[in-house]
Every structure is written in C-alpha cells, then in structure tokens.
C-alpha cells in the first residue's frame, strides 16, 4: 500500500474503496457513484488504474496498491502531472481530481519514452472519469503539458 505492507483481515464482500477510506483512513480516494461510472475512486493496482469501488478487497491481496496519498513527494512536492494540472487549473472542486490524477498517471507513465498521446487519445483515456466542473479542457491541456515537459526533460 503506497510502498508499505498492510496486513488486515477483510470481509469477503468488502470493497477496496471501503478498506482504503474507512479501514485505512486514506480518504483521498473519493466515492462519487454506486455503479463504477464516475472514476472518483480510481487507484492503481500493480500499476494499472482500476475503480476501487469495483474491486473486492481480497482480490487485491498481494498486489501493490497506490492511492493519491502516495503520489506527491514526502514534502508534498507535486509530480510533473500534478504540477501541469495546477498550471492549467485542471481542477475546480477537486472531487474528481484524485481519481483523475491516478488514471492519468498511468497514461503519462505508459507513454513516457514513446510518442506523446494525441488529444483524442487523452480524451478517450479520460472517458472513465467524470468531471462536472472543468469540462475537461484544462485537464486535457494539463496532460499535454505534462507530456511535453517530461519529454523535454527526458
């Protein structure tokens, strides 16, 4: 769990998002819907973004789980993606944001070293994450900025 081992007994029907929020106090992961549609609860399971409201906790046993709490540096330093989203004001109320950062982190990571994702690719990637505030534009611009910056630096 964000690099540290966590041991606990989970109920068979317990959802990963419940364990994170209620069991472990990691409330950065949000719950926005009942049906796996909104993406507010996205975390990364062995590097892949998943909706933690659709994952049974026991199914995640033995996996590496990363949540929004583990993303920024120990002193709160923002990652390239977070910084780019900040510069583009890619968050307003911020409720969808942790899920977006987790899902987009996978996109940015997985394309690092290759071609930067195109605008339609970014938009397609984002279809699992709903945002009611931003209209997505600043988020898409943020990803573009993050990819451009990482390529410049890389």
């Amino acid at each position: 769990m964000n690099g540290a081992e966590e041991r606990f007994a989970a109920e068979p029907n317990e959802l990963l998002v419940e364990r994170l929020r209620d069991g472990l106090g990691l409330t950065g992961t949000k719950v926005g819907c009942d049906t796996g549609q909104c993406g507010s609860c996205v975390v990364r399971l062995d590097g892949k973004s998943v909706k933690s409201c659709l994952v049974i906790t026991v199914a995640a046993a033995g996996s590496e789980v990363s949540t929004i709490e583990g993303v920024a540096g120990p002193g709160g330093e923002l990652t390239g993606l977070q910084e780019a989203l900040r510069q583009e004001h890619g968050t307003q109320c911020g409720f969808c944001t942790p899920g977006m950062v987790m899902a987009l982190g996978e996109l940015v990571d997985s394309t690092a070293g290759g071609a930067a994702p195109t605008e339609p690719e970014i938009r397609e990637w984002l279809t699992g994450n709903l945002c009611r505030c931003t209209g997505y534009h600043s988020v898409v611009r943020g990803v573009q900025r993050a990819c451009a910056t990482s390529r410049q630096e890389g």
Partner: protein
Amino acid sequence: MTAVTGESALQGPGLLGQPIDSREDPQLLRGEAVYVADVNLPGTAHMAILGSEVAHAKILGIDTKAAEQLPGVLKVATAADFPDLMPLPCIWIPGGVESHFPPHPYGLPGARPVLTGDAVRHVGDPIAVVVAETERQAVAALAAISVEYEALPVVTRADDALAEGAPQLHEAVPGNLNAYWTCGDKDRTDAAIAAAEVTVELDLVNQRTINSPIEPRGAVGDYNKATGEYTLYASTQGPHNHRFLLSALVLGIPFNKLRVIAPTVGGSFGTKGYLYPDMALVLVLAKALGRPVKWVDTRTGLMNSTVQGRDHRQHVTLAGTRDGRITAVRCTSYANLGAYPSTIGPGVATALMGRSITGMYAIDAAFCEVYAAFTNTVSLGAQRGSGRAEAAFLMERLVDRYAGEIGMDPAAVRRRNLVPAEKFPYDNGLGWTYDSGNYQENFERSLELSGYADMPARKAEARTRGKRLGVGLATYVAICGVGPSTRMSKEGMLGGTWESANIRVHPTGEVSVTVGSASTGQSHGTVFAQVAADEFGIDVNTVNVYEGDTLKAPYGQGTYGSRSYSMAAPAIALTARKIKSKLVRAGAVFLGIPEDRAVYANGKVFEEGNEENAKTFAELAMAMWYGWGLPPEIEPALDETTHFDPPDFNYPFGSHVAVVEVDELTGETEVVAYTAVDDAGNIGNPKVVLGQIEGSIVHGLGQALMEAAEYDDQGLLVSADLRDYALPRAADVPFFALDKTCTPSPHNPLGAKGAGEIATVPPAAAVVNAVVDALSDLGVRHIDMPLTPEKVWRRLRGEGAEQ
C-alpha cells in the same frame, strides 16, 4: 494563457485581472482536501434514510420493530419521533412580498416535512431513518422496515397535474397549482401578435435534468450537551443561510446555538444551496443519541432526493415583420415544481426564467405566464444557469424558426434586433433593467471567431463525408448579482440577499479576509485574496481568505447565481477602502502631516509630492496594533466589515456558435466546433473564469445531447444512476474557441458581472439550432432535447412529429 508568476504580478494594483494560479489546487491535486464524507468525528454513528419506493401513496403503517433488533442499530425513527420538527421552508414565493416584515414562512402550503408521515409524494420521499454503528449496518436495517402503502394515482408532468381530475398532491393546494405568475404586457403582446405580418409558434419541452455534482451530498451533525450547541458539517453553498433556516425555522432553536461548517464542497451548480431533510435529522439524532451522526448520500440517493432542474413545457410565439424585425414574444409555460416547493424552486421556475425571455433583443411587446404545478417527482430547484437557460432556449429557438420562416440568415435577424449599445440602461419590459453592454460588438466577434461566413463551404465538404454539418447561434443575457435585497423582496424572496466581508490586518502586515459566501470549487481563496491585495497594493501571498464556517465568517448568503465575484468581492474591496481611509488618517498622524496631504497608494501612506516621507502597509499595521499616539477619534487596530447590497442586478451576456456534424447513417451528433464570446464585465482571475466557462459550456451541451431525468408512468425515476443518466465525458467535446468582451457593470465597485455559470445558458439552444439547421432541408423545424442518436436518426428517415 500563461501563468503570471513574476513578483510584480503578485502585487496590486493591477493584480486583478491576472491569471494567477489557484492556490487551492495543490491540496486538491494531492487529495488532501476534506469533504463532508471525510469528516470523521470520534464516536460517530451512521445514518441511512429510507426513501419511498412508490411515487404516490397514503402511508397506512410503518413497522420498524425488526429493524430495531438488527446488529449495530442504535435508533430507528419516523415522523412520529419528531413532533417538534417544523417543515422545511420555501423562501421564494413568486409574486412578491410588499412588506418590511415578511410573513413567517412556517407551514407554507405543501412545504416539505422533514420525514413524511401521512403520505409519500415522490419516489425517494424520506419516511424513516436508521442510525447504526456502521454505515453498512444502517443501510442493511433499512430493508427490515416495512411500510404499508395505499396506492394513489400518479402524475409526473406539470400540464397533466393541472388538468381536470388529476391526482391531488396536497390538500391545501387544490388543483396542484402552486403559482400562476406573469410578467410583461399581455394586451400589448396579444395585439402585436394579432397584427403581425409573420408569426411563428413552437411547443417546447425543456426537459428535466439532474445537476449531478460529482460529490454526492452529505451531512454530519454534532451536539454539545454542555453548551447546548449544535454543529452541522454539510456540503452546502450557503452555510449562513442554512443556519438561519434550520435553527429558527426547522429546529426551533436560537440562531446562536447552531454552527454550520461547509468543508470542501465537491461541486454544486445550484443544488447544494437547498435545505434537505437530512440536515435536520443528523442534528436531532446527534442530540438524541449523544454521538455525532453522519450521513453520506449515494448517487442513486442523490438522484432521487436532490433538487432537479429545468422542466418546463412551453407554448411560445414570436411575431415579426417580413424583413426581420421582431415585434412581440409570448410564452406560456407549465413548470414542474415536483412534489414539494424546494427552498427557492418556485422563484427559479418563474422570475428567473420569465423575466429574461427577450434576451439580448429590443422587443416592444413581451409577455410570459407560468403555471407552476406540483407533481409526483423530485422537487425542482436551481441548476447551473437556472431559469436563464430555459429563457434563452425558447427565445433562440424562436429566432431561428422565424429566420427560417422569412428566409433570412439567422445571424441577420439577430443583428437586426439586438439592443443598441446606446440604449443602456435598458428596460426589457419584463422587469429587468440591463445595466450595460455592447451586444453588437460581442455578437459580431462570435461570428468572426467561429468563421460563420465559411459555413456554406464547410457544409458542402461535410456532405462528401456522409455528414450533415449544421451551425447554430444563440445569444443570452443572464441576470446575476442577486441581489438588491429590496428588489428581491418584490420577487417574493423571503430574506435579504446582500453579501458581506470582514478584513483584519494583523500586526505583522498579513491580512485575513473572511466572507459569508462559500466556495464549491470556484477558487474563492485565490480570487478574493487578489481583490484585497489589489486594493491594498500588497503581495497576494500575504492575504488569507476564510469562509464556510458560520462561527468565523461574517454573515452572507452564500454562493449561487454566479454572485460571489460581483457580491462578495465588492464587499471585500469596500472594506479594504474603509481600512485605507483609516490608514490615511492615522498615517497623517504618524507622518506628522495634515490629513489632506496624506495619500494611500502602492501599499503605503505618504506625503503628497514627497513619496520618501512614507509608512508602509506593514509598518502602519504594527503601529495600529500598538495604537500609540492615536487621537481619540481614531480607533486602534484594523478590523472592518462591510455589508454590500447593490443598487441593482448585473447582466452578463454573450454569443455562442455551435457547429455540429450529424452522421447520416447513425443519427449521431458530434459537436465539432464551439465558439463562445461572453461578457462578464471586469474579471478578477481569467484563469479561474476560463475554467468555469469551459465547464459551463459542457454542462449545457449535456442538456442538448444526452441528459434527461426520465420518469415512467408510475413516477419511478428510470435514470437514477450514472449508467442511465448520461453526463458528458471528455471524448464528447472538442476544444472550444473562446473570447470575451468587457462592459463593466456600474452596480458594484469592481465593475464585475456574474461569470461562473453564464456559459451554461446558451449551449442547448445553439446545439439544437445547429442540428435543426443540419436537417432543415428534410423539413425538420424542431427536435426536442436530448438529441439522442435514435431521435435524430428517426428524423433523418422522415419519422416523427413536425410542428
């Protein structure tokens, strides 16, 4: 737009209007912000609410015994357990209040009981609550409560509810009519229509939609036995308002015994300004159980209990000359208020809609009548652009219909009828007086930016790809800056609508600003700091902003109707000016010069003509803290408050152009380009406003293309989760072409106009106009929203009704 981070940019004056980065963003991006679901007080118990499964029935009995026996259950309660709770008031009664002393709004006909005991009136109507040790236990216990219903007939449409023999919702409201409301001049309008060269008519459905903030609502109640004080944490847009309404009007406790805290709020768009049963319930249960009580809604719960928006069925008529001059417009609207009047829903459905129907046009005769009716659906409330969007939709559809009828370019018709720039202030004949504007400039800019002149060529090109390209124009005026309190009382608002700010300058020169408003994602902390820093001429990073806690913040009405920047920010600016004038007087003493020789500028007080003889803001702050040497007429310390009640509303406006491509085979509509030129007067932070404009447009596109709250015959909300209720996703929209014009409002010291939601007002009209344009050669003259592929596909095949 690039971020301005140079030192000069962080210092006012000139700081206002700079796109500085939002200071709220880092913690949001790190997932550190605390929303109501993240508030965990020690010893918290969890509440779940049993909502009605049926839309209309008498309650014959409720059996809670089985639920009480279940593990972890602490309390099961029904209406009978709370005889002292008063119904949730409705404070916007269409028609006006002609008194300095408003009637006490207890027990309005049909006001919502906190828990319903006698009958249920919509699916989700709260009947009982369970409090248990865990949320799961509370939810599980709901299933063990049995309710015996006697079914009653159901009605879900406003026009049906008003028909003879319709099911009756409230004994006190025979015929289900909450209000019949009119504005404008009926006789003159009827006469102009009768005498017109051309008339066009449309029957429009402005479908019910669900605001759907991504954060569902929630509430945590706490009670302190020692002091008798209640604390409510809630996802609210207006903590002070909720405190006022809940304490005095629902709980019947003294005002100062209730503290309301809005933690970070995950979007609202109107819905979280309303009073809901859960807010009262967590408080009374916290007292009864001696433990904090927490309730967090689910998405399905939200859809069945949080106010919904729009929902008008209208017959609209436009009259004009053959050469394109609009002479009259008339609207008859059936508005669906839902089962109970929400906090301000009746006002939204009447004044906010009706008084705006002529939009940016100078029209001699206009009349609007609204029949606001109760039905077995969720209560109606505000929704981003509420009222104004419905008005723009009907007017802009009519203009296109008229242009088609007389064979004129829709742009030419609009151009011909815009209110001329020299006519401001302009009385629109429906009750609003527009403050300022240059509509021509704004409209022409939208045509230019969208490449309107090239559309014929683009249409021809699209056809070669199997696509029908359509272009749709829509303009709007959005009434914002609610409000002048006395004016609002004439609209029937039971309450003041002013806003306030307090500024404290600390001895070390830092500044704390507190305001009565509360952000739901609008970066208030950033923008309000800019306002104060700009006034004082100091570094914006030395200013902190606090809001959202009734114990700490000065009174205020909250964030709604895009009023924060034109209401709370002017209160900040005026407070800063009070402090500056005090500093000038005190500075003269400290500098040993006559008062009329002292000047405040660039963060210091100095002697006119001798800037060297100066005291900086920080030096003055310290000196005022000590208070040494001040004459008796100057109080020490710097701590001032202003209550700002503007002379009138402000009226942002704009022109949007949608370009769509309709797929001839599938009927799918893609928005391929969207241009918006909005005018929100002087803007505090363009980066923040840009984000709100973009989000607003997407919200409006959602209504046009996919969003609909669908009720079946039995009053069941069929679209009660995000699988069945479609919200726009990132892939549904292209980047937009945006620009602005600027005509400052004379009604506040910043020249500000509302901005946050204004761009939600025209997109639905622009898109429907565009799709109708794309299909016009098939004889299509109107399609009801949402423009789902199936609906459009049928029209492509020549099916469906035509007016």
